[in-house]
């Protein structure tokens, strides 16, 4: 999958599923999620699980850090870094 397709999938998950109660209309791929004050430990665990199950990647705990989850783009780039090389 190309980067923009991954971003679209992540964006759809965040806006349509995980943060069902937040107004994330107009959220862009590079917008800071931390600034919107919507991330908590439960949300992070769910994002990691979604990424692993949807894209078949394994995200080590050491990569679950603020800079890798601050935007849709950052999350997508994290996924790409962990996609097996022959994909």
């Amino acid at each position, binding site marked *: 999958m190309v980067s923009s397709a991954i971003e679209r999938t992540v964006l759809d998950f965040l806006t349509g599923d995980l943060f069902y109660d937040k107004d994330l209309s107009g959220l862009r791929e590079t917008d800071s999620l*931390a600034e919107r*004050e919507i991330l908590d*430990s439960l949300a*992070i665990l769910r994002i990691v699980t979604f990424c692993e199950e949807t894209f078949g990647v394994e995200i080590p*705990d*050491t990569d*679950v850090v*603020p800079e890798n989850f601050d935007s849709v783009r950052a999350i997508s780039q994290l996924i790409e870094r962990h996609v097996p090389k022959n994909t």
Partner: protein
Amino acid sequence: MTELLPNLLTAAADRWPEHPAVVMDDRTLSYEELETLSNRLARVLADRGIGHGDRVALWLPKCPEAVAAIYGIMKAGAAYVSIDPAAPPVRVGYIARDCQIAALITVSGRRASLEREFGSDAPMRMVVYADSAVGAPCIGSIPAIKWSDVVACPRGPVQCPAAASSLAYILYTSGSTGQPKGVAIPHRSSLSFVEWASATFEINHEDRLANHAGFHFDLSTFDLYAAARAGATVFPVAPRLSPFPAALARQWSKDRLTVWYATPSTLILLLAHGELGSVDLSSLRVVLFAGEVFPAKHLRHLMELAPQARFANLYGPTETNVCTWYQVDSAPADDLPLPIGRACPNCEAFILDEDLRPVERGAVGELWIGGGTLMRGYFNRAEQTAKVLCEIETAAGSRTLAYRTGDLVREHEDGLLQFVGRRDHQIKTRGYRVELGEIEIALSGHPSVDQAVVLAIPAEEIGHRLAAVVVANPGAVPDIAELKRHCAQLLPRYMVPETIEVRSSLPRTASDKVDREALLRMFSVD
């Protein structure tokens, strides 16, 4: 012993002015700076006639300004009402109106949602933005000032009109009748706990205390006030770091923290995802946990990683703060739940039957707590207070005021108390206290729902998961996503059921009550 919580700060600033009081991210406030900043905020409030007998709410992300504001509010003589920063605006509005706040400390980014919530019906008469360097837009017709105005105020102390019996803070907890209730704590009750905890765990000037709990959670009172009492340093966890266990673990190690006080859910998250085995925990001296059961296997793991630390299980509802405790001298050999221990020396524990008579030793009874840490009551709820705070007769024949915890316990031969269960539908999830009734009332308030039952499914790492079963109103077809959104507008996210199922009817017991046990069995099979 000092009479007021803010006196702890003033004494520490007098003795150790240059010592770091609060460290968060790359920001440090010394004791002198914290003292001065809180004096300035107290002046701002006092100059506007806000003080003794008033409540001032805080609704903002954790930051050093919030700590200064907490002390400043108390110095003005008022009680602080710290609201969960993640609470939905509807809940903020309810709390603000319920305790008729005189002022609100918040951040400018929340102004729009506050204006939508309050309209022209805001109870407060001023707003303070803790972040704005420029501009201070009103909320409706309520004037606002920015933090730079606070910083420009005179730095000298304000004469504090409060007394030991005055309210220091009100913390709102989940209410079974559908709305949260405010637990009102006077200075002397909080100080009774702080004095005991500081002495028992030997909190000293060199200590570096984590503060993970939000300021709306009573665990934070240990972090803030035990630190201030000793002139130690408190390290509030930055909101950007809190959701990331590995980053948090690294930061706590880097900060060379000596004292951790957290819920088991937090500690388990660190154990499971924080790579605790690869960070240096040698500075850790004391690990305290409270709020829920700490499964033995996880406690053993943590004790292996920090063998030099002292571990203790603290028990106590918000209404009494910590009232019993149990020191874990060695890693548990089995998987049985830890005892909640013995009553703290400043508290008394009574195990009573339905007629308020002491049960026989070893028998299960309800735990009542007396002593110096009791709440004054639920704010503005005399009737509810009277149901749980009343005089009981002691074994010696005297009468004493005691709080009915709702927890069922038994006393072992060795005098240790063991938690057995609840007598009602209050449960813990992720360390938070939840009245299932509050969620049921929220769900039942949706136009498509006729009846709602919320179940607490035991889950080892977080206490319980929440699942709901609803019966639709005739002709209605409940939409699950819409029901979750409806709940999220009224309740904190941790109270929104993870799953909601629609059924045509609910199973009933022989006495025609909803058969919760049958529903729980259905979820267990699923």
